[in-house]
């Protein structure tokens, strides 16, 4: 048994102006989970401590919270992996959400982004008589299995640095779910779904891999890349900055072997987009004043033909 000191964020939106913290001590084996410690605290010390939980085995996705500054499932985190030498553990609600009561947050923005996807199959032919089975080959199903493990715990949404400054971004889980329907052979709404997730700022993913901390190893980052690729392959919304950026980067590497910064900026913003270019101009001028501007043209690397051979050979993706 160990004395574990839970340092808990306390707040009730109905009565409190500002949050405060309570330290609650419980006597439990240190190998139990943070969720068990919270349950013990609620049962033995203070029945008003509020948190969400259900299955206690990383299936329901209810108990994601911030444990010592790291977001994850309380039911999957043993106390002895996070407590300090005095047995203290700091517990806060998930970031990127409005707290409701103690560790319970308002999940609405997360569910809203999910609902917008129309997260159910919409086959092209309605088959209302249900006369036939909609079969999927094992190969086609394989693409969807990882995403199907998502338990919608919102850990990735809470960890996403883009959501933290711009709540308009769909967030990792919603994009992974969009992928789940975009790549489902039974679905008939692929172009509409790709357009929808593009409107919800698909390309605002910052490539930071914070969502690689997914407790179910869904790793939404790779599905975000897949949806971007589907956008380009299907040529949906090609005149937006995201696809233009991806294509111009490829083009400069193909031509010079290098990512040519000046051409990439012009090609992404749009060579004739005067307003857009004026917006990047102040920073450009500050850089010029410090002798820091990238060269207008990049000299191709030696043997750049080899790079072109690679691009040409891969026109058709393997596996």
């Amino acid at each position, binding site marked *: 048994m160990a004395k574990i000191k839970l340092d808990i964020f306390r707040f009730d939106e109905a009565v409190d102006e500002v949050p405060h913290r309570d330290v609650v001590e419980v006597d439990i084996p240190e190998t139990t989970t943070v969720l068990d410690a919270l349950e013990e605290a609620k049962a033995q010390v203070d029945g008003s401590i509020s948190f969400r939980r259900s299955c206690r085995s990383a299936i329901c996705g209810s108990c994601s919270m911030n444990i010592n*500054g*790291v977001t994850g499932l309380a039911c999957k985190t043993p106390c002895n992996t996070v407590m300090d030498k005095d047995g203290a553990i700091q517990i806060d609600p998930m970031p990127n959400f409005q707290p409701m009561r103690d560790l319970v947050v308002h999940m609405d923005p997360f569910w809203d982004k999910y609902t917008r996807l129309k997260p159910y199959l919409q086959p092209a032919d309605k088959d209302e008589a249900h006369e036939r089975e909609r079969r999927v080959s094992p190969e086609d199903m394989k693409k969807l299995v990882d995403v199907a493990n998502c338990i919608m715990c919102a850990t990735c949404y809470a960890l996403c*640095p*883009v959501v*933290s*400054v*711009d709540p308009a971004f769909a967030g990792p889980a919603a994009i992974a779910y969009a992928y789940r329907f975009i790549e489902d052979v039974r679905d008939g709404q692929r172009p509409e779904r790709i357009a929808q997730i593009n409107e919800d*700022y698909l*390309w*605002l993913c*910052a*490539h*930071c*891999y*914070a969502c*690689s901390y997914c407790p179910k190893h869904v*790793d939404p*980052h790779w599905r975000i*890349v897949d949806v*971007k*690729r589907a956008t*380009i392959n299907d040529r949906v919304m090609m005149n937006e*900055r*995201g696809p233009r*950026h*991806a*294509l111009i*980067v*490829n083009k400069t*590497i193909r031509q010079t*072997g*290098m*990512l*040519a*910064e000046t051409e990439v*900026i012009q090609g*992404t*913003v749009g060579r004739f987009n005067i307003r857009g270019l004026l*917006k990047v101009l102040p*920073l450009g001028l*500050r*850089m010029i004043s*410090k*002798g*820091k501007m990238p060269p207008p043209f*990049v000299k191709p*690397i*030696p*043997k*750049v*033909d*080899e*790079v072109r*051979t*690679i*691009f040409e*050979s*891969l026109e058709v*993706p*393997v596996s």
Partner: protein
Amino acid sequence: MSTTLLPEEQPKNLHRRSHSSETKRYGFFPGCVAKESCKELFNSTMLLADKLGIELIELTAASCCGASVVNDTNRDIARVLNARTYAQAEALGLDDVITICSTCTGHMRAANKELLDSEERLNHANSILGKFGAKYSGNVMVRHLLWLLIDDIGLDNLREMVVRPLNGLKVAPFYGCHIIRPESVNGWESARNPHSLEDVIEALGGEAVDYAGKTRCCGFHIQLEKDGVAASMVGQNMRMAKDKGAEAVITPCPLCHLALDGYQQDAAARWGRTDLPTFHLPQLVAYALGVPAEKLGLNHHLIDPRPIMVDRDLIA
């Protein structure tokens, strides 16, 4: 651990390698930004190599690593482009490729892992490299200069080489996502609680500032996507550093450097003024090891680091 592995039975460590006693020659991959808008990074790296007594042999025919963006069109391009770079290193008899950019590190390691994990992918890459007579045998390890400093030079040696300690300058480390995440690709240290930059700052006689923003994203990859988002990510992180008392920032990544150095001004409206000067990792190490400050290109930074260096009696 209940079982002890004999030395010959130890699994090959895919994340770490040290060449301290055998060789001082390394393949060097500067990356695009150090050759374009952050030339001060390239120059100070070469000056630092001199001081460290190592030879960085630039892979001059190497291409861009793919910078995470080429994945958005085709999943094979980055892997084969990087296989070509590794083949060039092997042809020169080098099995280390040293990077000075977090994004290069992460994406070159990811490509290498894909090649080494699957014979099929390695063969596929070689079938393309074969068209121009190149071949990658799979012997290269991609490492950041930061790791070379710790694994090959060693923190104790580094401490002894310091001739101009940083006089307790409060430096906030900023790692850059791709040198730590995903952990399955990098794995050199904990992605959630890394401390290599802190160790280097302290070896140089500075004081490392601990703040929540150190492992967060600078927003560089979306700076052109939607106005103000990347700047706000910079402002948020620099606010955290400033509130913990930081006087300057150090980063192993030139993309982070461009964002942190360039966007603090634009972020001030939302996050307040922070104006933290940002050093490239090799600049600050080279300074402490005795490279004259005027050779480090500090005049090319948008937020001039020299006033804080004067305040700390580091330069006159």
